[in-house]
């Protein structure tokens, strides 16, 4: 019997790249660029003869076209295009694929039929925004600039902070459709060459058609795909990137993305804020401890409530049980469903406020906080003790500086919630063991994700849960195996 839906024979895609060996001719180029309304072909009469300009008008800077190409060619007495265009960076082209690449990236192709020479010069229109303060990693003290979508500007911001020749950059192009430029940055004398090799191989192995964001690049470079934990630190701060480079890490900048990727990282880097290094060490350490505590609190507070109210009522002090019994005595839902419904409602509010304009978001806050919070308690759907716990848990989850981590908390909360409702407090312990076991098994650029705890690097503990005085952090993290261990000249 034949299939109900017979498969159509797979047609070869028209957009598959032509061989790079095809010589570049006027006809072939026109054929390749057919049906592009924004394509401009201009014939320019010059002393050399007629020169043809091919370009996509939506991609190039039309003002500079006259200044850099047309005027010099009109007033040129030389016999070659390359000699006339002294102010432009001219490249000679030899094959069709190269020409296609250049024209779609914002170059102007110049064709001299008399000598049958093809040239390309980049005249890309500068579509960039001004440098603004960071949005997701705001600090009180510290730099107020953040990455933009222009990769060259981002490289400049890092280079200004690290004006050394040892800061190397390697450029890669990924994505068969987007042809996204990825720049890998590292400090040659510090970063372990093993990481560079691994990173280089990973980038080269990327095979996908389009990349719109650095997180998509990270997804292809990660060692572990099926984990909620990020294995690259995404940051919009050039100072954070330069600090990471100085420690011996690698930074990846992706064109058209305002976020850089940092790797290899460990789990504890996700709790570090750039401000940690600008504040007094005691205050910074205190804030860091608060962050770790609030992560743990956000993760376990709601599951703990469910575990206690479902199984382990014995562990509660009588004073608290007295309050809890009073509030729960007339509720229609079991603790598990009460928690699940409230957490889902909270997530709906969070998501909705993210998608809304600022003013609508404020209204949503009022609706969510007052109407839903207060009304559910008064209606007798949820206990007021639980509302307090959900509030604390939600606020605590926002203390983690990394946005991706705040999202992970929600997921893990549900995981622990199910375990706690089934097994009580042993369920939470079991869940935590599973999470820690999973974290221990992860790697970032093949380096252990739970270092410096497992494997144990005691020296790195000076900048782990506490941020020791800067004067005492004289060594780079051991787990990065840097070529230069010491950060001070005296010991090198």
């Amino acid at each position: 019997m034949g299939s109900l839906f017979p498969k159509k024979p797979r047609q070869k895609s028209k957009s598959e790249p032509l061989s790079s060996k095809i010589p570049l001719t006027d006809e072939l180029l026109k054929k390749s660029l057919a049906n592009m309304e924004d394509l401009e072909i201009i014939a320019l009469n010059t002393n050399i003869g007629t020169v043809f300009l091919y370009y996509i008008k939506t991609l190039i800077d039309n003002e500079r076209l006259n200044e850099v190409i047309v005027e010099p060619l009109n007033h040129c007495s030389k016999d070659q295009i390359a000699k006339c265009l002294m102010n432009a960076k001219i490249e000679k082209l030899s094959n069709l694929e190269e020409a296609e690449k250049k024209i779609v990236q914002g170059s102007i192709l110049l064709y001299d039929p008399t000598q049958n020479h093809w040239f390309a010069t980049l005249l890309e229109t500068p579509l960039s925004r001004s440098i603004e303060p960071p949005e997701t990693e705001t600090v009180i003290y510290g730099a107020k600039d953040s990455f933009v979508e222009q990769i060259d500007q981002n490289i400049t911001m890092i280079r200004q902070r690290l004006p050394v020749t040892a800061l190397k950059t390697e450029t890669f192009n990924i994505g068969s459709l987007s042809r996204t430029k990825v720049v890998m940055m590292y400090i040659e004398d510090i970063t372990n060459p093993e990481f560079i090799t691994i990173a280089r191989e990973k980038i080269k192995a990327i095979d996908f058609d389009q990349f719109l964001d650095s997180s998509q690049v990270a997804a292809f470079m990660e060692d572990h795909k099926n984990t909620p934990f990020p294995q690259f630190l995404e940051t919009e701060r050039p100072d954070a990137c330069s600090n990471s480079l100085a420690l011996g890490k690698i930074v990846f900048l992706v064109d058209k993305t305002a976020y850089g990727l940092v790797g290899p990282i460990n789990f504890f880097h996700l709790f570090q804020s750039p401000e940690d290094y600008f504040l007094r060490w005691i205050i910074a350490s205190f804030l860091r401890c608060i962050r770790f505590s609030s992560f743990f609190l956000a993760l376990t507070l709601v599951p703990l409530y469910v575990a206690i109210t479902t199984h382990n009522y014995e562990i509660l002090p009588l004073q608290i049980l007295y309050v809890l019994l009073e509030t729960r005595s007339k509720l229609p839902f079991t603790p598990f469903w009460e928690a699940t419904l409230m957490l889902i409602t909270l997530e709906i509010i969070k998501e909705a406020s993210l998608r809304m304009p600022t003013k609508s978001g404020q209204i949503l806050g009022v609706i969510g906080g007052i109407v839903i919070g207060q009304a559910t308690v008064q209606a007798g759907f949820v206990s007021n003790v639980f509302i307090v716990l959900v509030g604390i848990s939600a606020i605590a989850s926002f203390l983690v500086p990394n946005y991706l981590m705040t999202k992970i908390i929600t997921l893990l909360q549900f995981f622990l919630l199910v375990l706690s409702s089934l097994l009580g407090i042993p369920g939470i312990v079991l869940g935590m063991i599973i999470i820690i076991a999973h974290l221990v098994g992860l790697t970032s650029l093949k380096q252990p994700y739970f270092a410096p705890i497992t494997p144990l690097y005691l020296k790195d503990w000076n900048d782990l849960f506490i941020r020791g005085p800067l004067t005492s952090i004289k060594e780079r993290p051991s787990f990065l195996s840097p070529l230069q261990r010491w950060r001070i000249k005296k010991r090198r």
Partner: protein
Amino acid sequence: MKGYKPTSLLFVFCFLIVMSGCSPYTENNIVEEIAPVIFWSIKNDPNGQLSITTLVPPLIKETKQTFTLKVDLIKQGGKEFNLKYYRELKTGQLRMLFINKELAFKGIRTLINTLFTDPDVSSRLYIVIVDGDFEAYLKNQLSKQPSLDYFLYRMLKHYEKYNQGDMSIVNLHEFMKQLYSPFQDPILPVFKADKNNFTYEGTALFHGDKLKTTINNMDDQIFQLLGNDRYVKLLALPKQKLVLGRVRSKVEFRLDQTTKVLHVTDQINGRLEEYQGNKNLLNQSELSSLNKEVEVYLEHETTELLKNMQKEKVDPLQIGLLTTSPFFERMTSKEWKDQWENIKLDVHFSLKIQPVTTGNKM
């Protein structure tokens, strides 16, 4: 492959915990569906049965009632309570156990062992000896004090926490420790109960698991100074017409080599909080004479208390420990008990009063 080893090891560790630990089958204890009882009151019945009383519903602002059952076994009582009430009564929050004095005289080892081996019952369970009709007090107070059970617990917790020398509060763990210690006899607080009152009487002294005697008033105060808290917030001495406040004692018990004489030295520091006598305390010699008077009085009272303990063959102050040494026992627990009643006492008090009064003679 790098991460699999620690992961698998952690899983093994986790399963070991589960296997060696508690049962994986959790009890359904949804708090709105259960009634976690706070106390049990147990007394012996003339028929040889046990009479167990509790208050339901515990901790909730609902009309309360007392449940009393006559049973042969304690656990049987716990089970049969459930048949009388719509919520399942759970013992996971059992915080107080009131034992009738008559039952305590007969021995409470089996009762205590049953509760101690129950994994649901916390070792922080307070044990109280009740002299009188506790059930009558409960029934009478219910209308006036709906959360009576809760506030009784708060009272015991308060006096346990702050060790002010007001009461000898003992929990299950402490009682078991004392019960099975070869050189110590257990103690428990005694409360007197009647229809309208529930008041602290003193300390019950046990010989093994059987109640031997009760000490109260001044004896109880001295007992607090000698062994329990070694601190009394207010020490009232009506014969000397004074009250000492914040009394701290530094006691030293010393047995001589022949174990024939027990030397008790007690350094006491306290503030003179109130004085109604005729001495002018601004005069140093009169203050010293008052000091001496109090010392003599305390020495006499302490000697009487210790003699009483010897007579009853109880040693709640762990004096028997003085017969032991790091490497060998000089005498067994039984030998010590026989020896204890014949030991001579040499009690010496050294009192330091901080006068804060201006004196009464002008």
